[in-house]
């Protein structure tokens, strides 16, 4: 069995390099947690984690233009993968400044290690091109997240973790079953093999359906979104921010690859119709759900549901342009969402996350810069100029109309209309009410340069991206 002896070539190592960095780094973080003096533990863990993420980001970028593959074709590097990997790494990195409250002090090291492993799962998913790798990445991502969700003192965190575990496992079960059927249909776990369209048609259809259910769940598209608000609300703030970006980046990568590269040409459009339908449902449901929320994290959860709906809508018709725009909007979403979470982080104090909407009344008078930044991010989420959110939505509109999905464009506009109302209310509350009773006003504030740095990066990115909406054009060939 010569293949067994050297299953790894140099190309494999290169393709997997960023994944490996993030896979090994947590071990270092854990060891550091054991060896470093108590006073430095948190700082060192945070620093190591950030370093690992940055190194992985740089390493990942080195792969540009080198579509290597690993695991015998089960993992493909290249432009497409890199974009999603960078989004995931970015999401993880920018949630770090919020991580001051990630569990007790002695849990920080372990928590960050889990966060890195979770990121590792997302990186795997970004390049996964066979069912096994997909499942490996997904479970790595999810299992670490179950623990991370519980990393807060509040009972709600444990409740969130348990709910997430139960529902997510259910979805994983469905997905695994779908994978089994897909494998049964074609006799191969490679996505590319599915595209040949050989094998049983019923199995292929049912398998695709169950597989897509699993990812609809991870993307929290309506009606598979039910877990999202509770989990987002209960989980610690940095983990919520992390989930809202990293999980979605990973899941979207798989969804996009599946939609573009794995489905037989003849059936692809019809097989994907339910996905566009639930994308439409998400755009409406997410925004409508956000209307009645009184908690910022819950509200952002619903908002995220709608935002992902937009991204998925961009894929409608599986046109090359649509993929570019979906990637653009995903990146934009990552920045604006992380920015909004950054503001929530800024308003947080040691024992209370700044997520009650009451904390925002009159914010414009108490903390004008935080309020201004929040306003900017909310405008972006609502899709108003001059933000990347506006540009992204415009492009998605254009591409979905172009691909013949005018009704999706219509739903998008309707969803946006509702969402403007959602965000305008918060902006109004921030500026209209002078009386803020939030105790945060009285408490002496520590300077928070790291959080401001994160928020600043996001703000600049959201602004600049509004004018340079160019997704790299060479990513598409590497989907397949």
């Amino acid at each position, binding site marked *: 069995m010569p293949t067994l002896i050297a299953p790894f070539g140099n190309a494999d190592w290169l393709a997997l390099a960023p994944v490996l960095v993030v896979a090994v780094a947590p071990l270092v973080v854990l060891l550091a947690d054991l060896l470093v003096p108590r006073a430095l533990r948190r700082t060192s863990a945070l620093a190591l984690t950030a370093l690992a993420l940055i190194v992985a980001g740089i390493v990942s970028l080195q792969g540009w233009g080198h579509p290597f593959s690993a695991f015998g074709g089960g993992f493909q590097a290249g432009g497409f993968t890199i974009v999603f990997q960078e989004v995931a790494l970015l999401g993880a990195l920018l949630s770090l400044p919020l991580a001051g409250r990630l569990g007790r002090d002695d849990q920080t090291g372990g928590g960050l290690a889990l966060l890195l492993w979770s990121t590792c799962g997302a990186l795997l998913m970004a390049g996964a091109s066979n069912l096994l790798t997909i499942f490996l990445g997904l479970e790595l991502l999810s299992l670490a997240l179950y623990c991370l969700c519980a990393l807060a003192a509040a009972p709600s965190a444990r409740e969130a973790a*348990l*709910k997430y575990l*139960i*529902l997510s496992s*259910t*979805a994983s079960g*469905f997905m695994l079953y779908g994978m089994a059927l897909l494998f049964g249909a074609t006799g191969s776990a490679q996505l590319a093999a599915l595209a040949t369209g050989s094998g049983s*048609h*019923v*199995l*292929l*259809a*049912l398998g*695709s*359906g*169950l597989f*897509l*259910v699993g990812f*609809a*769940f991870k993307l929290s598209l309506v*009606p*598979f979104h*039910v*877990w999202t608000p*509770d989990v987002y609300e209960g989980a610690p703030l940095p983990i919520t921010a992390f989930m809202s970006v990293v999980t979605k980046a990973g899941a979207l990568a798989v969804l996009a690859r599946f939609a573009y590269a794995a489905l037989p040409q003849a*059936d692809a459009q*019809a*097989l994907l*119709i*339910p996905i566009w339908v*639930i994308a439409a449902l998400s755009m409406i*449901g997410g925004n*409508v*759900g*956000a*209307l*009645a*929320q*009184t908690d910022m994290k819950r509200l952002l959860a619903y908002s995220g549901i709608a935002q992902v709906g937009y991204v998925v809508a961009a894929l409608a018709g599986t046109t090359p*342009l649509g993929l570019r725009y979906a990637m653009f909007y995903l990146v934009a979403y990552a920045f604006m969402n992380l920015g909004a979470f950054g503001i929530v982080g800024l308003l947080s104090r040691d024992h209370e996350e700044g997520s*009650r*909407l*009451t904390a*925002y*009344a009159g914010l414009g008078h108490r903390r004008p810069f935080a309020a201004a930044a929040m306003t900017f991010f909310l405008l972006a989420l609502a899709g108003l*100029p001059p933000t990347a959110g506006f540009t992204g939505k415009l*492009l998605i509109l*254009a591409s979905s109309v*172009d691909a013949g999905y005018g009704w999706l464009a219509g739903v998008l506009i309707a969803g946006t209309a*509702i969402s403007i*109302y959602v965000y305008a*209310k*918060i902006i*109004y*509350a921030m500026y*209209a*009410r002078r009386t803020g009773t939030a105790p945060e006003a009285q408490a002496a504030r520590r300077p928070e340069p790291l959080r401001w740095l994160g928020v600043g990066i996001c703000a600049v990115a959201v602004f600049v991206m509004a*004018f*340079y909406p*160019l997704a790299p054009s060479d990513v598409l060939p590497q989907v397949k």
Partner: protein
Amino acid sequence: MIFALWLLPFAGALAIWAFGPQLKRLAGALGAATVLTSFAIALALAGQTFTGRGVKAPLVSWAQGFSFGLLLDPLSLLWVFVITGVGGLIHVYSIGYMSGDRAFARFFAYMNFFVFAMLTLVLSDNFVGLLVGWGLVGLASYFLIGFWFFKPSAVAAARKAFVINVVGDIGLMFGIFVLFAATHTTTYAGVFAKAGSLAPLTVTLACFGLFVACAAKSAQLPLHTWLPDAMEGPTPVSALIHAATMVTAGVYLIARCAPLWDVSPEARALVGTIGALTALTGAVLGCVQWDIKRILAYSTMSQIGYMIMGVGVGAYQAGILHFYTHAFFKATLFLGAGILIHALHDEQDVRKMGGLARRQPFAFWAMTVGTLAIIGFPGLSGFFSKDAVIYGTLEHGYPLLYAIGMVTAGITAYYMCRMLFVTFFGSYRGDVPSAQLGVAASTNPPVAHEAPSGHEGAHAPAWLMQVPVALLMIPSVIAGYVWFGSRDGPLAYGGPGSLWFGYFTTNFATRAEAVQAAVPEWLSTVLVLALVGIGAFVAYRRYAASAASANAVERLRAESLTAWRPLTRALYFDDAIELVFVRPASAIGAAFARVVDPQVLDGAVRDVAWLAGWLGREMRALQTGLVRGYALVVVLGVAGFLVYFAWFGTVR
């Protein structure tokens, strides 16, 4: 350079907004400095603009025919000159005018923001940028009309202006959509290149949409009603936004889209007619106003009517020239009126003025020069431009519009001279009780001490307000001479060949397809002058002759009380809009208000639109927090999926 030109005012606005309290008095200086620097940059770029096909600065280029960039061509350069030049002078003037106002810094932040927005509008090389600028100037205008937001009338006026402008924005969007659908691009160059090959109906539709926008922004019938009300803003605002620049955006748009209008005779006829009717209506309504700023507002409306008529019928150079001269003399008039208002402690009613020539000689001379320019006194700037517009209609084959333009010129002379005479001649009537003059009680609570309260405390030096006006008087007199000097010789004037002004209108140089007019130009000029003379003479007889001055109080009272009601009600435009749009809308709104909880968010969310809120609550009811409930939803979703996929798999 062009970026600096564009963004400097914005940077100024940001700086003033952020550091207003620290800057204190310097806010005004900073605002003026940034705008004047932009002006200097525009001057520096002028040579480059004239020699080539304009200065281009691509910003962003997207796929699918979206590309955004800046374009400084001769046409936009002319607007940039006026926006930054006249705008800069008005900024300087405002430092004096607004000194003592509590929100001094805020005022300049808004003004700078307006200049930026206006520059965005004229510098954009595509329709989307135009739309953005269009919306932003509307926003700036809204802020500035409602600047003294403690005055209910100012808030109402601001809202009215905003609402009507939104109607215009929708028209603009409609036009852009039509063009985009037909040409798949939004850049001027791209759209105009295909203008000739489009279906006539498409072009007419697009032109119609664009013209709705023009009508709203440039106060054309029937969307003009906001402009007189907009005079609630501070006087420098009226001078800059509601006279010199923003309201002429419509003229800019039509001139910019000349290739479209060229291929649509229907659109030309529509625009020309509306322009002429607006000119006439504005002039007629100006005859019965007593508020000095409202007189000027109606005159602005009337003059823009001229411009629109000019560019509408195809006499682009004439219309643009009139914009150019009008910016100077109307700014002079407004700023002169501002000096009066300032000096008279916010008195704006000309009936309570009178005899001010001796008390305010500077304002008197400024207003006199402005008035002579606007009525077209031979040799002053308005003479050339107005004559060019009026004769242009004839040249392009619209004799009816020509007649309206002539009549309007006469009426203009009458009401402007009326304003001048009542204000400056006779004896001062400020002490005469209002009732004796027929002045109706004001609906506003007295706010004099909240408003530009420059009178108490430190007065800004008078030169701050006088120097800008003096500088504006010069072009008010001589700006028209750019029309002189054509290829046919230094004294022949007018036409596409004019050397100086021709620089600005190179876009239109090849476009003159004037027909031979029945009346020679010299005769036309004489006729117009005769009408102007008659108008001025009538005004003189009624308001300035010794008989009129003798019992001025009596006569003004009689005139106030017996004025023809349709005219004092502004021809019922407001009432018609009220009846047709506002009443039904507010009825619907009231019906909704009964259903919708009118409370607005107080931390918790109450202000929820009815349907959406209901849905939201229903969804929250689903969101019970129970895992089994969630699992049920997920499983139902899965079932839905499976049904579809099973069906699909077996059917195929």
